[in-house]
């Protein structure tokens, strides 16, 4: 597999500088605190509105919906800077990464006009309803059912592992709109469900740290109007697949534990530990290599190319790298991992270690990705 190389333009470098300066100022002001894995576990609606004020949500979208029509490379840079500094961007993350592109591609004019401007303003957050209780990696085994009624659909069922549903206003929900047949990928549709609707119950699934990022969402005769069907009825599986490339190849699959790596390097520099610096250089080299790959996929994606396999590949290798950082760093420094430690490196180490198991599970387990990649290379 050969991916394009990307050399950033001077304008792009300046944009990066602008973002970095802004975020560093906010950090110093105390608007947020650096955290590892902040794109998933750092939901802060107030911070998301600050980002919106900069014009940094939906920045690639058409101006008519409030976007800035900037390139996806600019968005890539923005995202990298969020991750590198560990900013709490989880609240608007899914709407920006997945829902916007989905609606721009498949949405009705009504949906685009209604949702996109709100998302851009940081006033409307989305969750993604895909997994169901007991479905695990077998995403197509959807049991949540929508039955046709006058003017809309009645939804019954449940979704699970929905990141951030507690802060979200809506959820793009994969439901079965036709009876299940042999081909379980068929007859699925995407509905936008207002999470404040009658019949919706959201209950937290606590992460092993006790933190609340995931939710069970139950639907008990929830009415969803016809205009909230996204794209073509019965085409939900294919539409959902298209989102996965955005979900799997982004910098969030290589940088979740970057704040730890960065802090460890600074610590080794302070200690003038030449042997430790030699060893940590290997991780920097690996990050440089993975970043080339991730940016290459972003470039293909921007040009409309097919990236299903290469995105799966970035996620599969990148998340293993994210997991490796705490395991290497803890042996290079004297550490005592604690979530509330005074020393940053101990705090980041605790966050990285405790969140690491999720990296190779969420968004497609490594086992599922191996199969996708192997089938891709065998066909290619």
């Amino acid at each position, binding site marked *: 597999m050969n991916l394009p190389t990307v050399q950033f333009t001077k304008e792009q470098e300046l944009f990066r500088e602008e973002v970095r300066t802004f975020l560093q100022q906010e950090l110093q002001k105390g608007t947020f605190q650096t955290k590892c894995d902040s794109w998933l576990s750092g939901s802060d609606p107030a911070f998301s509105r600050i980002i919106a004020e900069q014009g940094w949500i939906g920045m690639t979208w058409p101006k008519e919906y409030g976007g800035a029509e900037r390139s996806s490379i600019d968005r890539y840079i923005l995202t990298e800077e969020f991750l590198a500094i560990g900013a709490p961007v989880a609240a608007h993350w899914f709407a920006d990464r997945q829902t916007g592109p989905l609606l721009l591609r498949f949405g009705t004019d009504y949906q685009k006009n209604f949702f996109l401007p709100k998302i851009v303003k940081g006033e409307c957050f989305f969750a993604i309803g895909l997994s169901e209780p007991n479905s695990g990696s077998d995403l197509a085994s959807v049991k949540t059912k929508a039955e046709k009624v006058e003017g809309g659909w009645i939804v019954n069922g449940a979704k699970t592992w929905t990141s951030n549903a507690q802060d979200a206003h809506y959820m793009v929900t994969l439901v079965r709109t036709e009876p299940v047949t042999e081909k379980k990928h068929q007859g699925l549709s995407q509905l936008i469900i207002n999470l404040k609707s009658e019949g919706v119950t959201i209950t937290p699934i606590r992460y*092993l740290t006790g933190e609340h990022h*995931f939710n069970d969402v139950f639907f008990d005769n929830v009415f969803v109007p016809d205009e909230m069907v996204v794209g073509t009825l019965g085409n939900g599986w294919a539409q959902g697949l298209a989102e996965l490339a955005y979900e799997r190849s982004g910098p969030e699959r290589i940088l979740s534990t970057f704040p730890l790596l960065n802090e460890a390097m600074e610590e080794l520099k302070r200690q003038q530990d030449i042997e430790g610096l030699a060893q940590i250089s290997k991780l920097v080299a690996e990050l440089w290599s993975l970043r080339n790959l991730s940016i290459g996929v972003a470039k293909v994606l921007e040009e409309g190319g097919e990236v299903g396999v290469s995105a799966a590949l970035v996620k599969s290798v990148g998340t293993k790298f994210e*997991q490796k950082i705490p395991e290497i760093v803890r042996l290079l420094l004297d550490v005592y991992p604690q979530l509330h430690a005074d020393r940053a490196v101990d705090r980041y180490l605790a966050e990285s*270690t405790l969140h690491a*198991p999720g990296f190779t*599970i969420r968004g497609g387990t490594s086992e599922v990705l191996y199969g996708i990649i192997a089938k891709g290379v065998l066909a290619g």
Partner: protein
Amino acid sequence: MSEMKDMIIEVVERIFKEKVEKETVDLLEANQWAEDVWQLILENEIHQVAVKEENGGAGGDYEDLFHLYRLVGKYAVPIPFVEHTLANLILEFININPHTELSTVHLAAKPLELTAGKVSGSLDHVPWARYAQKLVTLATEKGTQSLIVVDLKEAHIENHTNLAAEPRDSLQFTDGKILASHPLTEEQHEFLTKLQTAATVSKMAGAIDRAYELSVQFSKEREQFGRPIHRFQLVQQHLAVLAGEQAISAAALENSIALLQKGEAGDEIAFARLKLDDASRIVATSAHQVHAAIGVTHEHRLHHYTRRLWAWRDEDFHEKYWKKQLAKNWLNSSNTIWDVLTKKKQVEHI
């Protein structure tokens, strides 16, 4: 191995199985602990296992005690059993009568300073200090290292926890009275570091036992894509890896204890500690991957074991400490690796 071992192990495992529910372990997160289980331990005099008979104990041996530590790890029991019994074992080692009051021990830090019978300085990550009455730790006076006993009323205590929510408190002493002190030779100090390390290895081996068992069980019960997940080769690979690490960890523990018991424990305690560090990483990774999303929820008990492994591997005398010690030993040794592994020198000295 002492004759009573099998019986004690059986009794204690039954207590832990019956009394240590998931909710019991979760107590720590509400700043509580399993006081009822501790009462049962006291009532059954399990805490006296390795205390000499002349000191009112049951006269058990290292093997008994370390196998109980393994059970504490295996059931993630939120009681200061390891700390209290290890403190007493160490007191006996320097001929001080064991405590009946709840005691804890902390050796792996910068020692406190001792001046004219008063102790000053701070200690971080002291296990269970907030609940204990007595602390066994190290102090130096004019370059001489001593083991000291101090009443925890003398300390300013700040509550902290490790990754598994276990109490790991910060202590501050300012001219605190000590209850006893005993100078340590370098050999004695080294032996104590081994004892402490073997205790940690025991706990870790127990947590590994359980993470492995939970994974096997889960792979039988969980279905995906229409069949039990253990039918998938990639899950079988995880199970094989887990089985390997569990077996190796158990063997490392058993061999360490056997050597301690025979008074022949050399570098092997360090080897065991290094191997368990690796095994902890591998087991936590594979166990979570087998359990997938369900295993990272607070509701599932897997994290009781993986969080403990992540916490314990960086506590006490850890991999970094022992690698440095071993490197120093090699530096000035004419022994080859094979000499060390086969204990050739010992044979020569017979």
